[in-house]
């Protein structure tokens, strides 16, 4: 349900904007009809698989859901139980920590990767593809692989490497202090290449002449980065930040596969709590309320990021 909010569907307004302005009055009607005919399949799909489930989810959040006996209207009781549940509040804290760490980590790593791999050479193309691989790998598979890498004994793959520099062995996913950070690292590893691609596109749009004139003026590498690259990348970074923030609020698969929310609930996030309430406890009403709250937060966050970005751009 929550995914509906994040993937923009084709809306009539967008379609109208992209259609060319009508040339003749007579052709207008036929032209509009064609637009709608072309839109119809996508619109029906979006309606059936996104908007109806979304509305249904909002409806369920107001009911005690018992499909066979008939749902009972309970008003905002479900919302109250979510907001007063200590476990949900813990999960919220973990979600925010995980979200901020993953977003910032993936942004910085993505930026560094993009700077390193910018260019036209064939070898770079190969490297970029290799580095992009984690993004197209199923998260469940990524989770299983990292579970092996994180094996918490001295002979686990990562602990072996740490022992070469005299560290460890660490507990990683098995320790209450380290589990959340271990998940964040997996998130950064799989999210950074995606950011890299967007930032690479942004880098390609920067006028080379600016660097050259800065060089003539005697600007250092840092100054070039600070006063040319970063400002030029602002649109790209805003996109990356918005997408990453939304994605990290919804993070589920990596947590579910890596720890299932444990140990001792130290990695339980909003989505895993929602999942266990909805599908393991059959409390669909409360789970729907949690989903609606997540939708609202996601909306606010998206709109907020956009507003801040626009204001900055205007200045």
């Amino acid at each position: 349900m929550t995914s509906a909010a994040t993937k923009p569907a084709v809306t009539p307004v967008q379609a109208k904007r992209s259609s060319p302005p009508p040339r003749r009055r007579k052709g207008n009607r036929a032209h509009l009809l064609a637009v709608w005919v072309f839109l119809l399949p996508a619109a029906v799909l979006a309606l059936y698989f996104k908007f109806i489930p979304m509305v249904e989810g909002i409806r369920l959040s107001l009911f005690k859901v018992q499909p066979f006996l008939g749902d009972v209207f309970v008003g905002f009781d479900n919302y109250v139980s979510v907001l007063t549940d200590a476990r949900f509040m813990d999960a919220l804290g973990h979600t925010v920590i995980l979200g901020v760490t993953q977003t910032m980590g993936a942004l910085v790593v993505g930026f560094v990767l993009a700077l390193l791999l910018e260019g036209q050479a064939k070898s770079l193309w190969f490297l970029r593809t290799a580095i992009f691989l984690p993004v197209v790998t199923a998260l469940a598979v990524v989770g299983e692989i990292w579970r092996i890498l994180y094996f918490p004994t001295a002979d686990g793959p990562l602990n072996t490497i740490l022992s070469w520099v005299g560290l460890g062995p660490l507990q990683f996913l098995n320790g209450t202090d380290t589990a959340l950070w271990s998940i964040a690292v997996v998130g950064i590893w799989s999210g950074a290449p995606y950011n890299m691609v967007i930032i690479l596109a942004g880098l390609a749009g920067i006028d080379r002449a600016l660097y050259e004139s800065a060089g003539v003026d005697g600007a250092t590498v840092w100054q070039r980065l600070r006063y040319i690259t970063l400002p030029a990348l602002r649109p790209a970074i805003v996109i990356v930040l918005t997408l990453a923030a939304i994605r990290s609020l919804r993070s589920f698969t990596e947590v579910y596969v890596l720890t299932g929310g444990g140990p001792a609930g130290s990695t339980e996030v909003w989505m895993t709590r929602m999942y266990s309430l909805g599908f393991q406890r059959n409390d669909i009403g409360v789970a729907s309320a949690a989903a609606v709250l997540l939708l609202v937060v996601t909306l606010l966050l998206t709109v907020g990021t956009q507003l801040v970005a626009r204001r900055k751009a205007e200045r």
Partner: protein
Amino acid sequence: MDSKFKSYSRATLAMAVASAAMLTGCSAGSSTPAATDDGQPIEVWARAGTDAATTYAAMFKEFTAKTGVEVNFQGVPDLDQQLQTRAASKKLPDIVINDSAALGNYTAQGYLVEVDKSTVEGNDKIADSLWDEAKGLDGATYGVPFSRQTMVTMIRKDWREKLGLPVPETQEDLEKLATAFATQDPDGNGQADTYGMTVPGSTERGYLGWWASSYLWQNGGAYLKDEGEGKFAANASSTEAQEGVTWIKKQFCTPGNTQPGALTAATSVASPFFQTGKTGIILTGPYNFSSFDTSLGKDVYEVIEAPKGSVDNTVLAEGENIYVTASNGKPEQTKQVIDYLVSADGQKAGMTAGKQPIVRVPVNGDVDAAAVYNDPRWAVVQDALQDSSKAFPSAINFVPIKQVAAEALNKIVSDCGADNVESGLQALDTAINDELTSQNAKS
């Protein structure tokens, strides 16, 4: 925006809203589900993966050959989710075969109708204690027992003999054996890569609560106290329960006694440790015999009666019931199906007809598991079931209680430095009582 475009959009919007109302409208409201015979073959659902489904299919084929009654069988791995979908359309499958523990949840959702025990042919062949487990909070019978099993302890015999240790008879022995497996290189490869017990310590689906229950009972503890008349109270912080949990915590906190990563391991992650020769002890159901025989070899491991705690050697008993749903409109065929499933023929077919037994230990007293399987290991299961087993109460929805137990225990055992057994179990008591109250089952 020109006006024509506006009117088109309005029309489309209206259409969209109308169709949305049409599509979702059917799921609202609270009409009473009707139970009518649609003339189709009787629909039977069971929680079954591919292997188990082959057995069901073979069993029902035999049934149809015998009675001429057609059965539309579906093996559904995520049964409860799929049932919810069917419940929303008010047309459940006619018969559902699932865990005995599902009874509380199903009756609370109104899925089931009462079963008249006396109309079941051969009902006297099924032990009264099993019939009692099929009773709801109101004391009426809502299911027919179909299969039972207990957890059993399996041990790497070759490892144990190599280290010259005896078959463990107490929890202390078991602990010593686990430590020996972890520290004395029982597989002789010169590396410290073996561990004691395989433990599904994850909170996922309440695994830790499920696994720990046997050890808790063995020391006289329990999650719940049955106060009679469908009422229960939490009992998890008794001294006996504390003793059990202290033993469990010690296993988690002694390096090597449990497999690495046990705190976040579900059974799918934990079992391979035993299967690939990394751990030497596992407490699990007999349904694993076939896969362990294939991967390890039948002679390599032994199946033993559970070692005793300070009180006895109770192990968790589980099983499957046959449930008749509220939308079942085929009383005649339903009776034929049930009578067959609990008959000696039906039970035997369920044990041997396909790739995986769906009847583990038969509920029909005329059928002997060890004889049918021709395997003395099943005698261990059968004896444990008869003499020293206990089931979770099925009248209430036990799933949430198993879940809070797993969460509380996971918290206790993950902090080895803290003295948190008593406080953790007191918190569990509160959580259990809250859950019982919300189910109207608190005494």
